[in-house]
């Protein structure tokens, strides 16, 4: 396989998932599978209604951490183009937060790599969510379930 493209973007602006998927698809004539994931802001967390959110990040390190995660995925599976976009700044319910798209020759690899990248991004990339509820603002707590989702890849 020739060097496949990895694109990582951290941005305040929204993204067009359809355009990203088209770009992944048209990068190669050999990739039969594109798995993707979009994380969406929910209006409910820990049982409380959430009206808005702000995403803080560590500029520079976020891109570096995500690029490292994609590199680890490439060591595990033969992949084509990969695109990861993560938004920062103020967000509203139903806004897109993150996009991960993975092209591969076959679907098993694209699914596994897409889920791997999300599990690692959730637990390794320096982003923090602060949400607004009726009681004011609060930092979102990390979930034990996210850590165990990432850990399970180390047992394989």
């Amino acid at each position, binding site marked *: 396989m020739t060097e496949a493209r990895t694109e990582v973007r951290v941005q305040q602006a929204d993204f067009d998932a359809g355009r990203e998927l088209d770009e992944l698809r048209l990068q190669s004539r050999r990739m039969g599978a594109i798995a993707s994931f979009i994380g969406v802001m929910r209006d409910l967390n820990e049982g409380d209604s959430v009206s808005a959110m702000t995403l803080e990040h*560590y500029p520079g390190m976020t891109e570096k951490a995500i690029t490292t995660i994609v590199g680890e995925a490439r060591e595990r599976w033969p992949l084509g183009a990969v695109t990861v976009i993560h938004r920062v700044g103020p967000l509203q319910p139903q806004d897109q*937060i993150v996009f991960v798209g993975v092209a591969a020759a076959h679907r098993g690899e694209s699914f596994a790599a897409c889920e791997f990248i999300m599990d690692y991004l959730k637990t390794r990339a320096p982003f923090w969510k602060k949400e607004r509820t009726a009681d004011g603002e609060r930092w*979102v*707590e990390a979930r034990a379930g996210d850590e165990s989702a990432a850990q399970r890849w180390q047992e394989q």
Partner: protein
Amino acid sequence: MIRVLFFARLREQLGTAALELEHDGVSTVAAAREALVARGGEQWQLLCADNIITALNQEVVAGDAPLQDGDELAFYPPVTGG
């Protein structure tokens, strides 16, 4: 000098996003943490919590990682992106 950064809840609790620390006598990440607590007072014990992550030049490291003049050292709570 070591450039030290704090993020998210930790940044708010310390009331500081960034500061400069003299490199003299601060040879590891753990030593930098001790120097910050000594200098900042009790509230800065927060840096010693088990779940606080340290990143040196934007890579996660343990306390024994050596520091060099000009390094960027970050302390932050568990991440919650994605």
